[in-house]
């Protein structure tokens, strides 16, 4: 599998052209995506134009950007001017972006080539990409299984080698969980480090754009390009200067006892492979300690109330008045009911109902407010833990990728596949899922690092040394 860093150096060294790189990936997509179905749309024309522009720049001897000629896929909930952004929903099926998201613009400014938009669970609500209104995406490791979600299309595209990099969004694990299921790297950056401007909001206080890649170096490179302080996003912050750790030796790594095997949630093979990775880290000189995150068991309910409450408000704008699907009706209320009734899928409706209920007069204190208080407690757990350790290490998911249809009828079982990833979003931390081997059936397993806000560097360091140790 070719790395983005290699593509950039080959293009800069004039060993290959951006157009050649693009054509190769377009061929791979043609070969594989009929089965995988990662892309909702391939931007052949605009991508070709971008690649030509990069080559012209190179020919003219002009300086090239850090992602020169690298094809990057974007999740279908990110706006790219003049292109469709549907959030894999009927309600936005034909919506054309009137502007470009800041993260996507950062890619373009770095001379990346936006190759297409990828499938997802509708409005990023789901953990299997089965909630796409159009079609499910298949896991390249085993096409009878889901790629995870909600950024399943981006994960599958990178895992299948259809593009070296892809953006996803992670609200409760939607980058890290599919990365683990598909066997790629998946980064959920610190809340506020990547602009959300132009990312269609699911849960504003939790959403963060992240990266899929096949190597730790590519993950790092892509993050450094998309991360920026954006005046258009009031929750975006200037990335503070932090000390970069010299190496893994001596790093203190916490293993939360609440996530451990025997807590009931974890698959035996996941536990075994996770243990092997812990052993490798010990050999690299890391020091392990058991830590406690006592409020972990409240994370899932707090998340589903907080995220659904915000979603119920964020999705109000899809009303059939200005853009998107618009159903005819006799009265204004009919237009709303029909548009939203026809436009949203069942999971989206479920969460809008849940969130509307949680914010209603008389229930607000018992649900929304309690969820916020729980969030504070969970954050405090992490603050205390990070007093003792530099980084926390857990399996990314309790089990490897499941089969299509396996959890569709049981939403709570589906929600449980995000149990290890959700607390990170609630606490505003950064998280990185790395490949941690394969199960007996050949299914990828992922493990994740969690670090303090704006401490991506420590996770990158761990990922690098692990990768080089092989």
């Amino acid at each position, binding site marked *: 599998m070719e790395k983005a860093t290699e593509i950039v150096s080959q293009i800069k060294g004039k060993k290959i052209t951006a157009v050649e790189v693009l054509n190769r990936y377009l061929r791979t997509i043609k070969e594989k995506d009929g089965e995988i179905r990662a892309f909702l749309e391939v931007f052949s024309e605009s991508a070709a134009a971008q690649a030509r522009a990069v080559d012209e720049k190179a020919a003219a001897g002009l300086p090239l950007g850090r992602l020169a000629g690298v094809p990057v896929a974007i999740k279908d909930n990110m706006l790219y001017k003049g292109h469709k*952004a549907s959030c894999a929903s009927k309600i936005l099926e034909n919506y054309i972006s*009137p502007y470009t998201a800041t993260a996507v613009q950062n890619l373009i400014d770095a001379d990346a080539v936006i190759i297409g938009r990828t499938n997802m669970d509708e409005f990023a609500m789901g953990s299997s990409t089965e909630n796409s209104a159009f079609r499910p995406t298949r896991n390249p490791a085993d096409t009878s299984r889901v790629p995870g979600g909600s950024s399943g299309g981006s994960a599958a595209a990178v895992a299948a080698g259809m593009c070296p990099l892809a953006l996803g969004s992670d609200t409760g694990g939607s980058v890290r969980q599919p990365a683990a299921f598909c066997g790629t790297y998946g980064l959920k950056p610190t809340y506020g480090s990547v602009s959300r*401007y132009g990312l269609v909001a699911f849960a504003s206080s939790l959403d963060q754009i992240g990266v899929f890649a096949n190597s730790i170096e590519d993950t790092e490179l892509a993050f450094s390009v998309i991360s920026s302080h954006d005046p258009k996003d009031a929750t975006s912050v200037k990335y503070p200067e932090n000390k970069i750790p010299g190496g893994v030796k001596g790093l203190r790594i916490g293993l939360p006892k609440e996530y451990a095997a025997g807590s009931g949630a974890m698959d035996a093979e996941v536990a075994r492979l996770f243990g092997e990775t812990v052993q490798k880290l010990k050999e690299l000189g890391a020091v392990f300690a058991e830590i406690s995150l006592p409020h972990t068991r409240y994370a899932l309910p707090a998340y589903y109330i907080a995220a659904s409450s*915000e979603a119920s408000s964020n999705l109000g*704008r899809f*009303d059939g008045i*200005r853009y998107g699907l618009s159903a005819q009706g006799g009265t204004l209320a009919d237009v709303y009911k029909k548009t939203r009734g026809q436009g949203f899928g069942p999971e989206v409706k479920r969460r809008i109902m849940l969130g509307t209920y949680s914010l209603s007069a008389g229930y607000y204190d018992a649900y929304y407010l309690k969820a916020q208080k729980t969030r504070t407690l969970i954050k405090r757990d992490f603050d205390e833990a990070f007093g003792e350790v530099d980084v926390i290490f857990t399996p990314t998911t309790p089990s490897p990728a499941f089969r299509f249809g396996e959890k569709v009828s049981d939403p709570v079982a589906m929600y449980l596949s995000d149990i290890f990833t959700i607390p990170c979003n609630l606490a505003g931390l950064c998280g990185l899922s790395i490949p941690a081997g394969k199960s007996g059936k050949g299914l990828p397993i992922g493990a994740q690092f969690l670090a303090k806000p704006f401490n991506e560097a420590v996770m990158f360091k761990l990922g690098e040394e692990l990768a080089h140790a092989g």
Partner: protein
Amino acid sequence: MPEFEPVIGLEVHTQLKTETKMFCSCKTSASEAPANAFICPVCTGQPGALPTPNLRAVRLGAAAGLALGCEVSEVSVFARKNYFYPDNPKAYQISQFDKPLCENGAVELDLKDAAGGVRTKTVRVHRAHLEEDAGKSLHAIGSRQLDHTLVDFNRCGVPLLEIVSEPDLNSADEAYAYLMELKKLLQWVGVSNCDMEKGELRCDVNISLRPKGETKLGRKVEIKNLNSFKAVKDAITHEIGRQAAVLNGGGAVDQDTRLWNEKEQKTVSMRSKELAHDYRYFPEPDLSPLRISAAFKEELKKEIGELPKAKKDRFKAEYGLSSYDAGVVTGGKGLSAYFEACMSEVKRSGLAVPAKNVLNLIASEFLARLNGLKKDSVTLDPGDKELISPANLAKTAALTAAGKLSASAAKTVFAKSWETGKDPETLMGELGLAQVSDAGLIKDWAREAIAANPKAAEDFRNGNEKALGPLVGVIMKKSKGTANPAAANAAIKELLK
């Protein structure tokens, strides 16, 4: 039948004077702009668009709070008010809910009492918070009803400050006076133009009646669609009558939202389900809490300077003005600055002029001409070259105080000095308008006046005091208005004794 006491509270929305909207950089458009000329992804609720707070609006909101005697919160929080309507593009309005920018203020009103005197009343301001305006729905074009609705988003996202009073008002006149005072204060600190016809100030009224002496509140009615200050007054007067009639008839007032029908001069029930709205307020996750430091507040206070009430008290003490006169020259920030510029001119040049003479000239001649120039007491600039300079106004006042100019000659000199910028004393000489107090000269004119009006002279001799007027009038005419009126009176009386 019992006598009822109206209990009234006002919710005022005022448009803050900013170049751009509350959460995006679109222009806050003039009303004559074509529909949807000033819109962007943010204010039309496109997917993925995010709000960024307009710090100028925050500053103006805080300044308004200080002017209204409010505590400006160190931390205030934006909240989403969720409801569906086509002119509300995000399906939520960004407002403030449980942590507003400003709280616990008070406004002092000077009211005329029954005896014609002045009484002071304090109206408490419950809160003032920032929010964004909605768009405008058009259901008709002119008188033609449409079979569909058009939406103009130019207004959508324009910054508003909602000012909520406590129910401390007890009559239509008090409500009107409160609105006038609000307008004055908001204009004073430069926060809003407060033009109600342009929608820069909107007012909803909450009103209930209770038997006099009762402390429990009656059932409250909200009145909307009030498009002028007069409409507020008229609607309250009408609603007091309507509710009193219901109560006197043994009925109960329905808790209701009513619209003011300007044409028929009555309130009409909206009979809407809106009352059942649950807005599902929650903190806006796209915006951090607003933090206002003590240092910022101090800077703002300095920038605002003296507020009208303090200025009025100082003018009374410093210049010996009556409460009424001090009220006149503190009616607008510009006018009070002009008055002070005149007074400092008086002091600087050592002129012997009582403040009252300066004030009289301002209250009559100056304000009349100001209105003619389409300028106003709020925005006027003492250094404006189109106005008479404070120095020349002060000098004119000094000439009247010294008895060198008669009142009527002063008008002429004032007008001429305004037009030419010339020194009033020079003008007085050039125009030959110096007041003549020379007893000999006046006596000559008096003789001529009597000779020319034997009938009037005869009448006066016979005790008709009124006959004095025409005789003095002749003297004034002969002297071209320069004769000292007191000396002219005395001369006639002396000759006809």
